[in-house]
């Protein structure tokens, strides 16, 4: 038991590793604040394009979305980080992560938002257009607000996954929480920093998880 505590829950180690872990925590926050809006922007673009009627838009879009949903995000990230320099583009760790998440996360958010847009009855757009609103205005004021509301639990759920997925940035040596925790682990020869990182993720995400289940319960209640 003592050995277990000594190795996994060692308060002295936490104190020692704190500055490194704190840096990692901040980087993870920053990373999330970067990739979630990027992914959402990509998702909105994909969802809007998917309302186009011409096959010349729909087909390439289908291929695009399928590709980036099928590629494992880790593979995609390594590919961008190691591959782009070969064509003379060195975007660095942050750049590679931003591109990778835009592609991967955007595809997922895009599919969720597309389902949301399709859940809004056609009559809503027709009513809006009949009063003189443009296509874009009808989308912005009538369709998207309802679409987002209809798929809000899915959007939040995906956002949870995205924040957790930021830990893959450690493979390109971006000093986020997991990377820093492993650094601390290798310096201290102790697993406690990893435990601390797990606690930090929990603290960060638990409020979101709570929010999500409240929304889901409310939707269930609304459906009854």
């Amino acid at each position, binding site marked *: 038991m003592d050995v277990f505590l000594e190795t996994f829950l060692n308060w002295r180690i936490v104190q020692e590793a704190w500055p490194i872990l704190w840096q990692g925590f901040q980087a993870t926050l920053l990373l999330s604040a970067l990739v979630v809006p990027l992914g959402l922007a990509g998702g909105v673009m994909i969802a809007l394009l998917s309302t186009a009627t011409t096959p010349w838009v729909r087909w390439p879009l289908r291929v695009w979305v399928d590709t980036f949903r099928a590629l494992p995000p880790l593979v995609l990230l390594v590919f961008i980080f190691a591959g782009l320099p070969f064509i003379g583009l060195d975007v660095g760790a942050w750049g590679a992560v931003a591109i990778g998440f835009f592609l991967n996360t955007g595809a997922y958010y895009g599919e969720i938002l597309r389902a949301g847009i399709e859940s809004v009855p056609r009559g809503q757009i027709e*009513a*809006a*257009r009949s*009063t003189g*609103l443009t296509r874009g*205005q009808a989308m912005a004021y009538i369709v998207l607000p309802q679409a987002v*509301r209809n798929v809000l639990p899915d959007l939040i759920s995906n956002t949870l996954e995205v924040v957790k997925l930021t830990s893959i940035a450690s493979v390109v040596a971006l000093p986020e929480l997991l990377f820093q925790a492993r650094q601390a682990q290798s310096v201290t020869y102790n697993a406690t920093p990893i435990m601390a990182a797990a606690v930090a993720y929990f603290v960060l995400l638990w409020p979101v998880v709570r929010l999500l289940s409240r929304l889901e319960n409310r939707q269930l209640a609304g459906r009854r």
Partner: protein
Amino acid sequence: MSPAPIVDARAIHKHFGHLHVLRGVDLQVAEKELVFLIGPSGSGKSTLLRCLNRLEEPSAGSVTVDGIDMLDPRTDINKARQRIGMVFQSFNLYPHMTALGNVALALRKVQGLPRADAEAKAQAALERVHLADRADHYPAQLSGGQQQRVAIARAIALEPRVMLFDEPTSALDPELVGGVLAVMRELREDGMTMVVVSHEMGFARAAADRVVFMADGLIVETGPPGEIFANPQHERTRAFISQIERH
């Protein structure tokens, strides 16, 4: 010579794929006239109405409303549509906005009125449909009849020259129909030009200037309500009217 009609649709054809839904329809509506459009389900009544404000693109023909060529690509369609109010069978109110928000949206975003002005105008429109006290209610908090009256307010707030009604009372419980018809009567008395698709024969008798009977994408017969209902000239019209009156 009578003045130019405010709605002038000529030789309208509409195809949906292989379906030939409108097969050469002419419809002229004079200012302040109330035209009643009847006909079996699937005869093309909704499609014809929707061609008038170009929610559907006619395959052939011409549509002029208030002197504006609705099918000319150079026409600013969003500007033209403000002159043509439309009311739908399923109301189509925006569920995420209050009654006032529903009515004020186009005033703000299309006509560019400042918020306060738009809301004052929207409030006045809600008063005309007797729902001033429901301005801050969301559609889900209103009865079907009230929702349809808000939808009418949304259309008349833009001060249209013509109002199109597509079966405005068909989705309503019978006891709520009267309130909507009463508002339509008041609109008519205020001089609004109206094209109404509906099977409310009592309303047609009392308020319509002219009844148009459509079948299979063509206008079969047209005339004053008294004549069409009492003495229809075509067998199709007769069959349709006797079937309606049995209900």
